[in-house]
């Protein structure tokens, strides 16, 4: 027989104005299993709490129902008080008779009756509550950062500077990401390489950072505080410990006609190559697809010339395992390809612009390379077709973005700004040229951003036309751009020497594979989802995994860096303790009844359930059952509601508890049917009501 205490709060007059609190207390006394009930003006006040503690001791209560405000308001307060009186805090529940009753109903008989019912329901639940212990989890204080763009670099440096080890995994031969490709950056027009290169060098030399370039995450197991990661180090064919980075090999390599990824096809590279001079590590890699030795079996010119004997054709992919406690995902973005054969087959290209077949129609990153002092033209703006200086350049914004019929509805956020930047860079280099911009809106909210765009228009004379372009075609030496200026209502035709398309920011192609390995969710475009768009913007819903940069959605550098530092600090919060405590509202499997149908595995949004093998002492397999990892389970209860054999239940919200609430609810007032548990003795609170 339970001994429950019920404490009815008046909340000054907030409750007692419409609810007869005294009567609620009296009626509660009558409920089977209630050992003590009282009412008081302010339950959460010190005397109120003292009253509860005293009653617990005096009546040896084994459960408490505080009938007052919303649990969101004071559940913590009362559970703490109960704990101080020596009772397990999870044996205390609240009946919400303020927000859900006194405040929303008139002073009527039914209102008090409802309050009594709400108490009764909680009493029935608390009777079935069990003492729960918070879950403790160990924390491995090493972090994994995936992606070595500016986001990943910043996160890695912050965590490393905080004194923790970091594993940084980058799929390309060098860190740097897209920022390394940029010329100068808005809104200050400082040189991208100048501000990024020192950070890249730091990452390469920081004692707390272990850098895996040309590597990918192969497998992830475990949970917050205890991840086990398998990393695939792709065969570089160069022993980077022996290699001095002298570059002799690239000079001699006869396979020279490979479009450089770094220069976005505006320049060629060799089969053995260091992607760009400031690369970290500044070590080459052999692109086996284009290497003559690997494709035809003959050449080895690089090996012959290498003074360090670093070339190793026999190298194979290598797998290493690392244990980490927290993960930062910083895999960045890619640009929408205008060409039909892009990495996003779902998105229709722009046939009306010639699918980017014309060499003088380029994208924003190609323009960055043209404008970059270290780029293929040494920073001179020259059009790709014939190397002439273009006197009229047309910039088209929102290409791919904000274009529902092409499958993309979002705004890419950075292109308004970088297009303004491009017009300035162009004007600073081609004084007698004109930059035209077709725009739908100018989105420049940010410190100094709108001023920047105004400068492009007012000081550098960029001609902004509000409208989209319908068609681009070549006519002799020029490209004819047919657009509209919707402000004047007129169609516009421009003879352009070069056209720059501000194409949409998209996630890295195929990135969902990684997200699935991590068990984090992503949106329809395959951008990673944050736990809450406003209040938890750097965390994933999956504990221990954090986001930095454009993998979450279009972002510029300041935002990427801010988020990266935020993610780093979240990781350090995680690492600030040796073990973590978690609320014990988690699911548990009854191994005796589980029939191994694995439905729960399928529905669990957090991959908290795994298959467990039960073996006898000789090691023979007896059966397989589901097993919940309490450190990963968030307590959503989906599995419990799904299991057909009722073998999985959620602590704090068990089937028994919920059914008892349903039963209790209907027992008051206008009860038509006999209570199923009648023989237990009917409570006389109807008379009281």
């Amino acid at each position: 027989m339970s001994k429950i205490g019920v404490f009815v709060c008046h909340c000054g007059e907030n409750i007692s104005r419409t609810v007869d609190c005294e009567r609620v207390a009296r009626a509660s006394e009558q409920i089977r299993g209630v050992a003590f009930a009282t009412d008081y003006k302010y339950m959460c006040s010190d005397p109120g709490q003292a009253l509860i503690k005293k009653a617990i001791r005096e009546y040896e209560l084994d459960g408490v129902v505080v009938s007052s405000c919303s649990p969101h308001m004071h559940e913590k307060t009362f559970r703490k008080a109960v704990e101080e009186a020596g009772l397990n805090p999870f044996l205390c529940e609240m009946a919400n008779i303020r927000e859900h009753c006194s405040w929303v109903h008139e002073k009527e008989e039914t209102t008090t009756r409802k309050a009594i019912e709400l108490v009764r329901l909680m009493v029935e639940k608390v009777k079935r509550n069990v003492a729960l212990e918070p879950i403790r989890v160990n924390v491995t204080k090493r972090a994994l950062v995936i992606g070595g763009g500016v986001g990943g670099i910043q996160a890695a440096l912050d965590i490393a500077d905080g004194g923790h080890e970091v594993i940084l995994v980058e799929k390309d031969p060098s860190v740097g990401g897209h920022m390394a490709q940029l010329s100068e950056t808005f809104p200050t027009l400082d040189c991208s390489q100048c501000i990024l290169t020192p950070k890249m060098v730091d990452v390469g030399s920081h004692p707390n950072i272990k850098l895996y370039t040309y590597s990918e995450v192969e497998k992830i197991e475990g949970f917050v505080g205890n991840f086990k990661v398998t990393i695939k180090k792709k065969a570089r064919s160069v022993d980077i410990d022996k290699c001095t980075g002298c570059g002799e090999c690239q000079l001699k390599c006869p396979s020279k006609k490979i479009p450089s990824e770094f220069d976005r096809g505006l320049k060629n590279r060799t089969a053995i190559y260091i992607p760009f001079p400031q690369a970290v590590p500044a070590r080459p890699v052999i692109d086996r697809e284009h290497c003559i030795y690997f494709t035809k079996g003959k050449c080895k010119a690089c090996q012959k010339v290498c003074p360090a004997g670093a070339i190793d054709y026999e190298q194979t992919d290598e797998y290493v395992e690392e244990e980490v406690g927290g993960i930062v995902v910083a895999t960045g973005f890619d640009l929408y390809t205008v060409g039909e054969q892009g990495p996003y087959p779902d998105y229709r290209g722009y046939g009306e612009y010639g699918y980017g077949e014309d060499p003088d129609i380029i994208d924003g990153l190609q323009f960055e390379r043209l404008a970059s002092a270290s780029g293929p033209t040494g920073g001179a703006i020259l059009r790709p077709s014939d190397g002439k200086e273009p006197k009229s350049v047309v910039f088209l914004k929102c290409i791919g973005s904000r274009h529902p019929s092409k499958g993309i509805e979002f705004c890419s956020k950075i292109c308004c700004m970088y297009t303004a930047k491009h017009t300035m860079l162009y004007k600073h280099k081609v004084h007698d040229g004109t930059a035209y911009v077709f725009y739908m809106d100018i989105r420049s909210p940010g410190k100094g951003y709108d001023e920047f765009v105004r400068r492009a228009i007012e000081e550098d004379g960029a001609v902004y036309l509000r409208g989209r372009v319908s068609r681009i075609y070549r006519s002799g030496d020029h490209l004819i751009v047919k657009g509209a200026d919707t402000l004047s209502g007129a169609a516009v035709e421009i003879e352009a020497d070069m056209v720059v398309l501000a194409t949409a920011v998209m996630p890295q192609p195929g990135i969902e594979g990684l997200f699935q390995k991590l068990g984090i969710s992503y949106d329809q475009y395959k951008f990673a989802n944050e736990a809450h768009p406003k209040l938890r913007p750097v965390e994933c819903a999956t504990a221990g995994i954090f986001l930095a940069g454009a993998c979450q959605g279009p972002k510029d550098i300041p935002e990427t860096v801010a988020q990266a530092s935020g993610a780093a600090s979240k990781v350090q919060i995680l690492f600030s303790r040796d073990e973590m405590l978690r609320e014990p509202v988690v699911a548990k499997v009854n191994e005796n009844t589980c029939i191994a149908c694995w439905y729960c595995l399928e529905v669990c949004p957090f991959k908290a359930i795994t298959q467990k093998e039960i073996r006898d002492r000789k090691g023979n397999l007896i059966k397989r059952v589901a097993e919940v990892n309490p450190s990963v389970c968030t307590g959503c209860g989906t599995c419990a509601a799904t299991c057909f054999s009722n073998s999985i239940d959620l602590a704090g919200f068990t089937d028994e508890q919920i059914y008892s609430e349903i039963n209790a609810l209907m027992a008051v007032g206008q009860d038509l049917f006999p209570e199923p548990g009648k023989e237990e003795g009917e409570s006389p609170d109807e008379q009281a009501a």
Partner: protein
Amino acid sequence: MKYQIRLTGDNARLTREINARCGVDLTQCYQCGECTAGCPMTPEMDAGPTKTLRLIQLGMEDALFDLNTPWLCASCETCTARCPNDIDIALVMDVVRQMARLKGKKIPVKQPRVFQDVFLKSVENNGRLYEPGMIAFYNLRSGDLFHDVGLGPKMLFKGKLPLLPHTSGNREKLREIFRKAEAFEKEAGKETSREAHADPGHGSGSDT
């Protein structure tokens, strides 16, 4: 300025009416101008498709029916194919033409309307198009008596113009379809107009 916009709660009515008639949502047009940019007829048009859609969005019925734009539209569907919001602008133009006719509006540019009429009359009469008859009739109705007369004899000489109209055994059936379609459109026109007047908002959507 010829027109001023006065926004009352009633302005969305025209959009609703046209939405209902063509099964597209014109509030989706974000006035990007892509349709105008690609339209082959803009040099002759007074407004162009983008502005036409804007007048509809703002409920400016008088201004809309004053436009020559819908009548100059060549039905090439370039706009429809490229609209970022998948709006069938060519169909909107058809619907505006049709509404003008059903509502008895004055047509701002005569020739395309006359051509449409004589063309369809010829088809309705013979089941098949009789070009010489149609052209002659068109010249008469449009008042441009000698339009393209030079081409006629040349084509006759090339054996490209038949001297007598062809008719089809399905002529009666075709006439019946003309009758029914006309009646259907009239009824649909009345209904959508009524609905557009009645419905005050964009549906009161329930999420259950």
